[in-house]
């Protein structure tokens, strides 16, 4: 659903007394000021402060007495780059993203394509139902899934063993902990992108599918030549947002595994939280936050460049 962007320039070209215009400008500032003040004070300033903090060695000694603060330039960043725990967190985060983004987009797209079919009944009900996990509280559902993934009493392992497959120590084995958390994450978020894809799919005219069918194209060919091009711009937007949010996974490892087993689920944000709030190395933690930001920015730019090349958008 798009909103037509009315041309703003045409309105307000009539003559009016300057007093009215001045009053209007003052009113505009009054409307905007509180939000701008809040954004400036509680967002912009902390971000700049974080950049500055990352250039100091703010730690527990500095917390006690600010005289103990030292400006150390890029030392925090250097230390991070040589810290194996940090690289472990990066590797885990990348694993989450590389596995999770395609998985969640595929799940959302599949669900959207299925729901979009004309033969499906009661579509509005399914739509809302599939979206419901997205609005549930993350911590609460993480707790539920922690029990579903329980090695001995979890329903998932019960299902596996009923089918003759071996039970998996989902959250206790470092090699399955990431897939286990991903199962939960995909369950929770697939409805969001599904709705977006569904909305776009419903704008694709039926005659395009009709024409393809007449040309002899089967369902898969129709998907590739009619559906995919239609959703390409949306796909780009969705994947950019998905990558950014997968890079910011925190609550899931915090609630389900506390970063374990054997640090296999420590994400960059979890590492930052521990560095900042467990050890009070605020300088180092701020450096982590900036590195995270730069990573997300870099990957976003790469995605945009790739999309431009592929022609998905101008």
């Amino acid at each position, binding site marked *: *659903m798009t*909103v*037509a*962007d*009315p041309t*703003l320039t045409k*309105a*307000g070209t009539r003559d009016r007394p300057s007093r009215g215009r001045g009053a*209007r*400008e003052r*009113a*505009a500032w009054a*409307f*905007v000021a*509180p*939000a*701008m003040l809040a*954004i400036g004070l509680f*967002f912009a300033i*902390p*971000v700049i*402060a*974080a950049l500055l903090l990352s250039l100091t060695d703010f730690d527990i000694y500095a917390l006690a007495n600010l005289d103990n603060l030292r400006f150390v330039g890029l030392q925090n960043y250097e230390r991070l780059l040589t810290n194996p725990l940090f690289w472990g967190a990066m590797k885990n985060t990348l694993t989450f993203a590389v596995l999770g983004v395609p998985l969640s987009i595929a799940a959302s797209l599949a*669900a959207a394509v*299925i729901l979009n079919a004309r*033969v*499906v009944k009661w579509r509005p009900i*399914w*739509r*809302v139902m*599939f979206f*419901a996990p997205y*609005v*549930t*509280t*993350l*911590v*609460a*559902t993480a*707790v*539920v899934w922690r*029990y579903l993934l329980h090695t001995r*009493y979890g329903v998932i392992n*019960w299902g596996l063993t009923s089918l003759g497959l071996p039970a998996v120590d989902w959250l206790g084995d470092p090699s399955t902990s990431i897939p286990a958390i991903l199962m939960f994450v995909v369950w929770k978020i697939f*409805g969001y992108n599904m709705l*977006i894809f569904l909305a*776009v799919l419903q704008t694709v005219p039926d005659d395009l599918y009709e024409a393809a069918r007449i040309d002899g194209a089967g369902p898969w060919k129709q998907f590739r030549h009619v559906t995919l091009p239609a959703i390409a711009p949306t796909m780009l*937007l969705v994947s950019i947002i998905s990558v950014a949010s997968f890079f*910011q996974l*925190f*609550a899931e490892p915090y*609630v389900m595994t*506390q970063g374990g087993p054997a640090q296999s689920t420590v994400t960059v944000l979890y590492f*930052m939280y521990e560095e*900042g709030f467990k050890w009070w190395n605020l300088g180092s933690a*701020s450096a982590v*936050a*900036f590195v*995270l*930001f730069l990573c997300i920015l870099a990957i976003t730019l790469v995605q945009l460049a790739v999309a431009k090349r592929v022609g998905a958008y101008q």
Partner: protein
Amino acid sequence: MKIRAILLNLAVALIALVVLFPLVWMVSVSFMATGEAATFPPPLWPKVWTLEHYRDLFLNQGMGRYLWNSFALATLATILALGFTVPAGYAFAKLKFKGRERLFQFLVAALVVPAQIGTLPLFLMLKGMGLVNTYAGALVPWLASIFGLFLVRQYALSIPDEMLEAARIDGAGEGQIFRRVVLPTLQPIIVTLGLFVFLGSWNDFLWPLIILTDQSNYTLPVALASLSREHVQDVEMMMAGAVVTVAPVLILFLALQRYYIRGMLAGSVKG
């Protein structure tokens, strides 16, 4: 074709099963007796329905307090966020003022920056203001909602300028125009944004975890995370806690889902 219809509907039913099962299981276990869920094979339905965990939560674990904290904070966040962002969003859309474009570009750039960067300095700043462990401290991030501003602005762009001009010619001041003409027109997006903020505040975890240090101030997610580390074995009680946390927002969402979905699509789908 009939087969296709059956298969598709079956697929839908399967997805529905996967989607609903954890939630239904959560409710079901919350009514089971202690220790019943930790057996193999895991039961799906309580043998005997009991309210003991809900009673335990509210009488012994202070759940009522956390529920109140979550509700109060979410309500205040909604009111404050609307108060701050609706006028600003309208002004960005419809009122020309010096520096509007520059400011808007800055906001677009700010969208890329993840909020967690400022978390630590913001904590130190609020400590200086004495707002740690207070409601006010927990509400601060909701005042600076760039996303909300964009949402309102996007919607407000569709207000016909002629309507505003007519009111101005009639001699109305900007404040009156805002109250009498703009607000009623913006009503759908106000409901949507209010819903976003309420749900967002209710579900928020990292910031309340950091800023609310006293147990009596915990919101439901923070209390639940803390309980889950202490009572790892107590499945049934944890499920009851999860139900108390999830049920209010789920019900709110189901009641107002039209507004939520419409707002969500308006923000994300570009032509």
